[in-house]
């Protein structure tokens, strides 16, 4: 098992580095000149050239990538110019390891930006995750147990409605009606725990997390319903019944253990995917998380921020993958990694 994890982590790291390279390749292949975006209105060719050099965009992509990768492990300085460092050390920004680059647009190390935005996205993702797991899995179980009844059809049908609408529509609808028109919940605004305590933090998260959760709930209801129904058809449930077990024990010990294992896999991957930022929900509720920052970075040709967020998001997804696989071996005794 340990060997398996080591292998997976090593492979994951290689994959993350490869992804950073791909992101850079795409960026360098773009017809627009990224340096132009750092130059402002009074741009001169000399200034443009100077910026390009300072940003490292004059190098071939591979050596840019090597510099970047080195920065992660040993840190870096921006701009990387020994002459400038001697003449005007105050213009050099230090970026200690793990250095994810330096954003020319916001004049800050990328890591600082991520550290600032990540809690917003992560709070949102985790809050939504908890909501959809409880509601989605719960309703899915109820629907499966009442298969074919009105309850089942109502649950599956209404879930489909939310699934069919785009996120921005649900988000805006909740925002306008629940918060602005009817005033049932306060107008959402992100407040960190440090600033406003747990209460305000949760209050701020409620609507956007609900929006995100509503989109996922439908999928989880259907998935849970399908898995529970599948397990209900398994021979081992017939055995459990034939033993004379109570229906509660059959459900909680025998049915759910089998049905929820695949859900855990999907849930882990979904959460991993969301931790790296949610673009639409953050945009709708004006939350300054990784998703929004990524969009901004991409539209302003801020390569270091783009690469940084790609790496963080990729790390979450890959980590989630590994965690889910390892978890599987814990849940299912038949699965053995070696």
């Amino acid at each position, binding site marked *: 098992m340990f060997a398996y994890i080591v292998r997976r982590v090593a492979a994951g790291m290689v994959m993350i580095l490869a992804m950073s390279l791909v992101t850079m390749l795409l960026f360098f292949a773009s017809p627009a000149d990224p340096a132009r975006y750092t130059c402002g209105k009074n741009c001169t060719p000399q200034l443009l050239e100077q910026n390009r050099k300072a940003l490292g965009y004059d190098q071939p992509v591979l050596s840019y990538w090597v510099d970047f990768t080195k920065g992660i492990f040993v840190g870096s300085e921006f701009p990387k110019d020994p002459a400038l460092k001697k003449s005007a050390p105050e213009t050099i920004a230090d970026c200690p390891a793990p250095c994810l680059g330096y954003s020319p647009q916001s004049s800050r190390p990328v890591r600082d930006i991520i550290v600032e935005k990540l809690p917003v996205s992560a709070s949102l993702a985790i809050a939504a995750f908890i909501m959809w797991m409880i509601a989605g899995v719960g309703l899915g179980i109820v629907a499966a147990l009442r298969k074919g009844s009105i309850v089942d059809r109502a649950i599956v049908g209404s879930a489909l409605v939310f699934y069919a609408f785009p996120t921005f529509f649900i988000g805006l609808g909740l925002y306008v009606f629940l918060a602005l028109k009817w005033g049932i919940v306060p107008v959402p605004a992100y407040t960190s725990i440090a600033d406003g305590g747990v209460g305000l933090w949760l209050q701020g998260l409620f609507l956007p997390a609900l929006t995100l959760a509503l989109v996922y709930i439908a999928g989880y209801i259907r998935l849970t319903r399908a898995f529970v129904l599948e397990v209900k058809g398994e021979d*081992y449930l017939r*055995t*459990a019944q*034939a033993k*004379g*077990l109570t229906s509660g024990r059959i459900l909680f010990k025998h049915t759910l253990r089998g049905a929820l294992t695949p859900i855990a896999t999907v849930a882990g991957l979904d959460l991993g995917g969301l931790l790296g930022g949610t673009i639409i929900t953050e945009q709708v509720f004006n939350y300054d998380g990784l998703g929004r920052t990524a969009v901004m970075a991409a539209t302003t040709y801020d390569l270091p921020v783009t690469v940084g967020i790609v790496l963080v998001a990729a790390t979450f997804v890959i980590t989630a993958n590994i965690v889910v696989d390892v978890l599987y071996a814990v849940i299912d005794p038949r699965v053995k990694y070696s």
Partner: protein
Amino acid sequence: MSTWVPTEGTSDALLSVRDLKVTFPTEDGLVKAVNGLTFDLNAGETLGIVGESGSGKSVTSQAIMGLHRGTRAKVEGSIDFDGKNLLKLEDEELRVMRGRDIAMIFQDPLSALHPYYTVGNQIIEAYKVHHGSASKAAVRAHVIDMLERVGIPNPQKRIDQYPHEFSGGMRQRAMIAMALVNSPRLVIADEPTTALDVTVQAQILDLLIDLQKDINAAIIIITHDLGVVAEMADKIMVMYGGKAVEGGTADQTFYSPEHPYTWGLLQSMPRIDRERLDRLRPIPGNPPSLISPPSGCAFHTRCAYRDDENLGCSTIVPEFDVQDWHPVRCLIPAPKRKAIFDTEIRTPSS
């Protein structure tokens, strides 16, 4: 020893099934899986139910266990166990009897055991649900003892292993231990050896025979293989299209069968204990539809001895014709059946 009496009246048998009907609604129509089944089983006896897929043999066993409750299946008639009609019991009353008084052994022990729990966990659970006050250590000791009795070597270690760590034969032994852990009075074994290799099958059948002597339970063994019941069963019921077509002692079924379907079954299997035939003698055609069964005798479409004109095989639904405690659901008169068997079916060695 064995009276196979398909009468309508009451009986003092351990299990007494009367006019059992099980139907399932499907998109294509109503499936009549069991269509009027009547039989008795005494304590300590072994009944073999033989039939092909779709004959209703497995559905019968599930109806006895009440496993159709909560599904869309409709079960009619009566199933008296120990004087109580199981079909009329409250869910909770029946649940308490499941596993304690009536236990079941399934065909495929790999899928019948929960893959996520150890074998011991699952057997202990089967015991504890009916013996709530027993101490943990005592239950564990009892289960280890059961595993030992069904021939699982090293039970102290095996009890904590998962089903996938057992071989097929060992898994079926564990299933048997689970079924017998509460010393039930009736054990239903549904194709208990079909998924097993022939050498393992022999071991499991021997084990069942030995254990039955120990616990004196009645056994219903359901199988498509006449060879399997030859050694075990006191009496045999042959099912076709949801009905019993012939019942009798094992000797009657094997040495003087009277229903053309039973003849067909016996003739169609190649036998290693007899002269090899140049050609097998199959039953022509396919099993009947359970949604729109053939009119008259359900077997008439495949029967070599049908006689629509004189006997009305395609129009008259045959009732049981009981001669010498040997019920046969056939319109051919008994003397003629016996004559056909003696001249055309019986082989020198039988």
